[in-house]
C-alpha cells in the first residue's frame, strides 16, 4: 500500500496503518539517526521519538513532499536537537572537502595506488565492517547522510535534493567529496 493511503487511513483512526508505516521505515529512520548520532541507543530513542512526533503531527502533514522526506527531516531535526543538548563535540566536520584541507583541483589517491582493494578483499567481513565504521566516523554528518541516501537507499539525485532541500548540483558535489573523504579515511585504516 502506498504511503499516502496509509497516511489517510491513519488520519481516519486506523492504528494498524500507522504500525505499517513504522515497520516500513524503522530501518531507514534508525539508519539516519545512527548516521548522525553514532550511538545505537540514542539512535533507537530518536527513531521512536520521530515516529511519535510524526503521529502527533500527522493532521498537519500537507502531502506537498513525500512522507519519507517529511519523516527524514523530522528525524534529522530530532538528532540535531539531541546532539545540541548533549553538547557532544563532533570534530569531524569536513564539509565538502574544504574544511578537510582539500584543494578543488587536487585528486585523491586512487584505491589502486594506496592498495585498498586488495587488503579489503582479504579482510573478514566483520573486520571490514569495523574498519568501515571507523572510516565513517571521520566523515561529517552531511557526508554520512548523503552516502546513506545514495548507497543504502539508492535514491536518485533529484530525490536526494528534495529530501535534503538542496540543489541537484549540491548533491553531486557533496557526494563527490563524501566519497573522496571516505576513501582517504578508509585508506588509513586498511593500510594500518
Amino acid at each position, binding site marked *: 500500500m502506498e504511503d499516502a493511503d496509509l497516511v489517510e487511513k491513519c488520519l481516519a483512526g486506523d*492504528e494498524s496503518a500507522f504500525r505499517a508505516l513504522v515497520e516500513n521505515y524503522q530501518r531507514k529512520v534508525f539508519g539516519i539517526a545512527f548516521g548522525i548520532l553514532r550511538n545505537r541507543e540514542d539512535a533507537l530513542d530518536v527513531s521512536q521519538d520521530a515516529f511519535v512526533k510524526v503521529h502527533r503531527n500527522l493532521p498537519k502533514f500537507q502531502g506537498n513532499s513525500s512522507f519519507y522526506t517529511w519523516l527524514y527531516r523530522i528525524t534529522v531535526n530530532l538528532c540535531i536537537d539531541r546532539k545540541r543538548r548533549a553538547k557532544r563535540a563532533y570534530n569531524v566536520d569536513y564539509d565538502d572537502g574544504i574544511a578537510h584541507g582539500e584543494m578543488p583541483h587536487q585528486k585523491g589517491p586512487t584505491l589502486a595506488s594506496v592498495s585498498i582493494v586488495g587488503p579489503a578483499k582479504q579482510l573478514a567481513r566483520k573486520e571490514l565492517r569495523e574498519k568501515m565504521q571507523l572510516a565513517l566516523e571521520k566523515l561529517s554528518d552531511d557526508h554520512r547522510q548523503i552516502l546513506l541516501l545514495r548507497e*543504502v537507499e539508492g535514491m536518485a539525485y533529484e530525490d536526494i535534493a528534495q529530501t535534503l532541500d538542496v540543489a541537484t548540483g549540491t548533491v553531486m558535489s557533496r557526494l563527490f567529496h563524501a566519497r573522496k573523504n571516505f576513501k582517504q579515511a578508509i585508506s588509513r585504516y586498511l593500510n594500518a
Partner: protein
Amino acid sequence: MKETVIMECNELREHLHAYADGQLAPELADAVAVALTDCPDCQSELDEITTLSELAREGLLAPLDEVDFSAMADAVMARIRHEAASVEGVKVARVNEEPKPSILDRLGQFLGETLRFERPMAAFAVALVVLLVVGLNQSATEGIDDGSQAGDSTPQIAATPGATETQLAAKTADPRKSSVLRPTKHRRVRAPELHMATRNNVEIESSQSPRGVRLEFDTDKERARPAIVWHVEEGSEEAAN
C-alpha cells in the same frame, strides 16, 4: 545509425560518479561507456568509485543489521497510546473539575472575611483605602466650596446676601477661590450663598440659597468641551483645557 559522441578524459571524469550511480541521461551514458574503452585510467577510477560505494554501503548497513527492529513498532504504538490516554485523562480531569466561583462570589467572600477581621492585613488595607477616598473627596469638595469650609482662615465672602462687589473681588484675588468644574449633570456647591457661574463670559446660572449653588450642565453637550474655571467673581470665567 546512432552517432557516437567523442569525449575527452577531463569531461569523462566529470561524469564518472553520475555514470556509476546510473544518473546520466541515456545518450550521455552511452558516450561515457564508449569513452571508457579508450581510457584505462578512467576505467580504473570508475572501478574505484564502485568499490567505494560498496564499502560505504557495507559500513552504513552494519549497525542496522545488528539491531532487532521487531520490538520498535510495539514500543512506538505503546507510546502513542500512552500519549493519547494522557491527553484524554487531562480532558476528563478538566471536565470533572468543580467550576471556579465567579469573580463576584470571590469578591464577596473576600470582603466578608475582611469585615469579620479574618484577614487583618486586608482589613487594614481596606480601611486605608476608605480613608484615602474620603480624604480625596473632602479635598475635592473644598476645591469647589470656594473656601467656605470650617477652618478656612480666609474671610468668608458673600456669605450673606448683599455682599459687596469689593468683597467679591477681594475673595477672587485668592487663587484658592476658583475651582475647575468638570461637566456633570448636577454640581452642588455648598455656601456661600451668592454666586454667579459663567461660561465664556456669559452668565449661565446664578442663585441664592442657604443650601448653596446648584449648577446644571447638559452632560451630553458639556462632555466634549473644555472644563470651565469657575470663579465667584462676577463675570470672571475662563475656559481651560
